[in-house]
């Protein structure tokens, strides 16, 4: 019963989020285009499904994923856990003095290895579940005549996010300035753009923005804030940010790399791909 009431609120909340969009769409449709929407009934059912599905999805995330995800992010970045895992793995090599002063020591960045592994795997898996990435992948598959696989694109993007978030966690631990990383990332993107197949470029740029939404952001934000709170010398308000930026930059790099690799390994595929898309244009 309680669950039903909660769902009702999530549902209402989703409706109010979608309302302005629906207002703009139908307003322009009736006032400017002034034509009946083809298959109006089907479109409205579709809208209902989107709202209903999104509400269920968000409710489920709130119930299941977010609490445990945030809890784990907090536990993995807890100094106590890091001390234990360090002792478990390299206990012999730790000098006595450091072991005694455990409460005040600053850990070496490599001692946060479970954090990086968690960042990588959770970044990958939440991106695979991201609905807006799925939407773009479906469209890309359709427009490219099937030569861009839905799974190929999703996995390429997910690897980018995974790598980005673990690098971003490392940055929070080391305290290096954020903009160095982002600017270096831009330089890589620019160089890759010069050598990539032209047709993939717009899609690759888009895949940066689509990755970070409903599923990824809350958990990644919790990880960033957890890290910035527990690492000495970091402020959660300032250093907690930046992970999302990493997660939206690195997919561009990984998708461009994926395109370059598939071009090198299969010239044939690209030719076929070009043929299909030029046919579409005509």
């Amino acid at each position, binding site marked *: 019963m309680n*669950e039903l009431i909660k769902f009702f609120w999530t549902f209402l909340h989703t409706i109010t989020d979608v309302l302005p*969009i629906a207002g703009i769409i139908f307003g322009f*449709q009736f006032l*400017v285009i002034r034509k009946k*929407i*083809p298959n109006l009934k*089907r*479109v409205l*059912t*579709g*809208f209902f499904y*989107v*709202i209903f*599905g*999104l509400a269920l*999805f968000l409710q*489920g995330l709130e*119930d*299941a*994923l977010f609490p*445990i995800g945030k*809890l784990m992010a907090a536990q*993995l970045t807890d100094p106590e*856990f890091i001390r234990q895992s360090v002792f478990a793995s390299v206990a012999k090599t730790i000098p006595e003095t450091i072991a005694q002063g455990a409460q005040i020591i600053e850990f070496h960045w490599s001692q946060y290895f*479970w954090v990086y592994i*968690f960042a990588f*795997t*959770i970044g*990958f*898996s939440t991106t*695979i*579940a991201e*609905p*807006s990435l799925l*939407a*773009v992948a479906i*469209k890309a598959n359709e*427009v490219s005549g099937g030569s861009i696989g839905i799974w190929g694109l999703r996995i390429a993007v997910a690897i980018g996010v995974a790598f980005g978030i673990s690098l971003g966690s490392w940055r929070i631990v080391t305290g290096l300035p*954020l*903009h160095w990383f982002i600017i270096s990332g*831009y330089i890589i*993107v*620019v160089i890759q*753009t010069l050598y990539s197949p032209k*047709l993939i470029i*717009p*899609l690759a*740029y*888009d895949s*940066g*923005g*689509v990755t970070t939404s409903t599923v990824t952001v809350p958990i990644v934000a919790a990880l960033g804030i957890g890290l910035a709170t527990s690492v000495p010398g970091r402020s959660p*308000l300032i250093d907690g*940010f*930046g992970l*999302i*930026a990493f997660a939206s930059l690195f997919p561009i790099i990984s998708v461009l790399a994926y395109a370059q690799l598939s071009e090198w390994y299969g010239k044939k595929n690209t030719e076929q791909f070009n043929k299909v*898309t030029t046919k*579409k*244009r005509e």
Partner: protein
Amino acid sequence: MKSPIIHFAKTIASSARDLAPIAIVIAFFQLFILKQPIPNMDEIALGSILVVVGLTFFVYGLEMGLFPIGESMAFSFARKGSVFWLLTFAFCLGFGTTVAEPALIAVSQKAARIAAQGGVIETTDIAIKQYARGLKFTVAFSVGLAAIVGVLRIIKGWPIQWIIMGGYLLVVGMTMIAPVEIIGIAYDSGGVTTSTITVPLMTALGIGLASSIKGRNPMLDGFGLIALASLTPMIFVMAYGMLYS
């Protein structure tokens, strides 16, 4: 024709497969690394079912509602030939979807608190609220602007890479002079603005336009709206931070 029930079952199965990696990662870390039992198993199981069913409905609705309406509007605007109305629509869509975005509201409130801590604004509630609201509208405006530029680009056939690289240069240049506290927020704001409903609509609009305008290729010209919508907020948020300090 496949029966709808089989189709639905298949969609459910693929949604479940999409979410399986998260379950595996969480179970692995919880059981083997943190060495703790998984709390509230029944709640998690129920929540996971909701997520799977929700994702299934979302994908259905996408194909039935969001994609067709985005594309049919793009076709109608292209046939009507009024660039003015098309650009107005693009702006409204970008602005309207962003201003109500919960993630953006959360980020702008955090930014306001940082500004208050750094002494940029007064630490009163009114000053913080005002700063947050200003920031929210700035970002929404910048996304609207991005939609205008993106649609113009599709009409004119400008290559996206030049616009994006120009944007990158601007971001890098502004990073050098913007207040340090705003940089992290500005960089993150690019990623949070594009929501689950905006992305399919914008994508459908771009592809619909590119396929209905002669000489445009949907692959080459249709994508790119999202990229612009995640770039302009960075520039505008930094500008906002600079103006305020």
